[in-house]
């Protein structure tokens, strides 16, 4: 289970072994269990960026958190105290981020989040050494609410699992959605059978359904929804429609509209090169998680070009400048070190034998999060 892999970026370059590693990066991510697909994509995106940078002075220490907060905390303690890493990154899940990030930044380490963006760390708990390169948790749901308005929906049925990110999701949707709610449901976290919920949706008379059910929960829901014969349009954040999941959902996902800060077909040169090189390197299409890992590594590399990591003030300012070519096109940090970015609307399509997404519009432009004002940084 405990997979410890030391991957010196040096080994990838020709100068293997000769150069002394100058920057140590600790990556704590989920590489086993049901959530491993997300961690793998973040890791692979990150490593791809390192390889393309050609730098031989970055040493990676990658460990599996097994999606358990206590394991993540133990790994973080060891990385900080025994390995003396400079930068931490990699955590997928908000509850793990809440357990690790405040302690790590309090000990003077930098933390670059490639995925989790809990509201507590965007508002009162913000920190100058904590940078979120993905999104604040509410963002994609807010965009879904904005999309529902523009699509003319006035009577949504909304559901999410009963845990903090699920409550954030429904709150985020309602923050932008202006219509009525025909129903609001919290399901059990990890629930795999949605027959009872789908029956209620059928009876509700809604004109749209917003759902946030990440990972296997979303696969189960989509398959059962498609089979139930209910044909109310679905809207969701990209988490239930990323590249790793779509192949398991199949036709049931076709045509579903979802919101994302990234898409495979975003028209910028960085993204085109990223999609092509990722597919060539790993033999699969990248997901939004892979794009986030890739952007996180490129942000870090851009800061290292400007300042040494031991120069805390300089390195921090260089991170904040976000002077890197993002796969999302324009990218900037707001006052609380969370992204200001466009959130796009995508539609699930089939390209040959592969299910993937096509961008059909912009849900919100230059969107910042709702908690920046609470951050006293």
């Amino acid at each position, binding site marked *: 289970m405990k997979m410890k892999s030391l991957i010196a970026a040096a080994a990838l370059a020709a100068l293997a072994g000769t150069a002394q590693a100058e920057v140590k990066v600790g990556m704590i991510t989920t590489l086993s269990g*049901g959530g491993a697909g997300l961690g793998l994509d973040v890791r692979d995106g990150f490593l791809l960026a390192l390889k393309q940078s050609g730098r031989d002075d970055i040493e990676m220490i990658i460990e599996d958190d097994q999606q358990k907060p206590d394991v993540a905390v133990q790994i973080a303690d060891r990385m900080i105290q025994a390995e003396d890493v400079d930068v931490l990154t990699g955590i997928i899940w908000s509850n793990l981020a809440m357990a690790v990030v405040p302690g790590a930044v309090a000990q003077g380490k930098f933390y670059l989040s490639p995925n989790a963006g809990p509201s507590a760390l965007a508002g009162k708990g913000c920190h100058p050494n904590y940078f979120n390169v993905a999104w604040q948790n509410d963002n994609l749901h807010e965009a879904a609410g904005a999309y529902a308005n523009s699509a003319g929906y006035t009577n949504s049925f909304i559901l999410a699992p009963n845990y903090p990110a699920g409550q954030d999701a429904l709150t985020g949707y309602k923050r932008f959605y202006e219509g009525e709610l025909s129903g609001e449901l919290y399901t059990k976290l990890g629930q795999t059978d949605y027959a009872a919920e789908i029956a209620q949706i059928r009876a509700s008379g809604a004109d749209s359904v917003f759902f946030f059910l990440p990972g296997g929960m979303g696969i189960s829901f989509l398959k059962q929804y498609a089979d139930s014969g209910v044909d109310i349009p679905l809207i969701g954040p990209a988490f239930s429609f990323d590249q790793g999941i779509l192949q398991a959902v199949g036709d049931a996902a076709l045509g579903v509209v979802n919101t994302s800060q990234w898409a495979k077909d975003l028209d910028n040169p960085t993204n085109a090169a990223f999609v092509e090189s990722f597919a060539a390197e790993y033999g699969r299409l990248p997901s939004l998680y892979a794009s986030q890992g890739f952007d996180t590594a490129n942000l870090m590399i851009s800061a290292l070009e400007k300042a040494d990591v031991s120069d805390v003030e300089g390195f921090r300012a260089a991170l904040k400048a976000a002077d890197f070519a993002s796969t999302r096109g324009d990218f900037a940090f707001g006052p609380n070190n969370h992204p200001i970015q466009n959130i796009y609307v995508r539609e699930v399509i089939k390209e040959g034998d592969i299910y993937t997404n096509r961008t059909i519009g912009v849900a919100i432009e230059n969107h910042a999060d709702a908690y920046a004002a609470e951050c006293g940084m």
Partner: protein
Amino acid sequence: MTFVLLVEQVLNGLQFGVMLFLMAAGLTLIFGVMGLINLAHGSLYMVGAFAAATVAGATGSFLLALAASLGAAALAGALVELTVIRRLYGRDHLDQVLATFALILIFSEGTRWLFGSFPLYLDIPPALSGPVALPFGIDYPRYRLALIGIGLAVAAALFLLISRTRLGIQIRAGEEDREMIAALGVDISKLYTLVFALGAALAGLAGALIGAIQSVQVGMGEPVLILAFVVIVIGGIGSIRGALVGAILVGLTDTLGRALLPVLFGLVMEPAAAMSAGASLASMAIYILMAAVLILRPRGLFGRA
């Protein structure tokens, strides 16, 4: 809550219940006959689902996929019994829990090693997809109706097997007195392997049937395993009839709890508070049911004193 919705939810509960029965039946048989707590039963469920997804992907036939799930899970079960479980019969339950927990980890990482970390695709066969119109204007998924039918048929077959066949007699005798039937000349180790493989096959079948409407992924068996344990505690450990009644009780309680509790709370509370209180209580409902059954009948509904 209309009548139609209520009927639909009862059907949903029944469907959930009979699928739980397939899991719980194997678990309770193995515990009843061999006195073994098998935490790895959920892994056999996963093996069935992965075998079905692989075969369905290669051949496109759902029936072949089901056959593969039965075969693969029974084979995995028999192998595990011969290599690991066999050494555990004489040990106490804590050792069994430890060893079978290790098996969960081995199965999970082994499956990841073979199939990767991303979920597999397994779909409902075209003949069973889509809704079917029932009386009273109920539209109900055809596949779920089929699940109810298959589950009840398997239950009936299992009753016949236990009550009418030579193997059944040996299983029942094994539950009564292990040493005695060994002394009477029954090849007890062969019987154990057979029972274990039978339980595993049922779990594998459940995994394949459920995999088609859920997600075929590593770790899919563990949540079901917990529910299956609740079922056999409620039904009485070792009793197949108890497993059936317990499974349907748990299925109905869980489904109707999720559907009705938020509505009931809504009569006396604010909608938002009712929703979250109802959802929270609904996820506790089956454990409250289990506690209530244990208070009234400490050995479960059909457990023997």
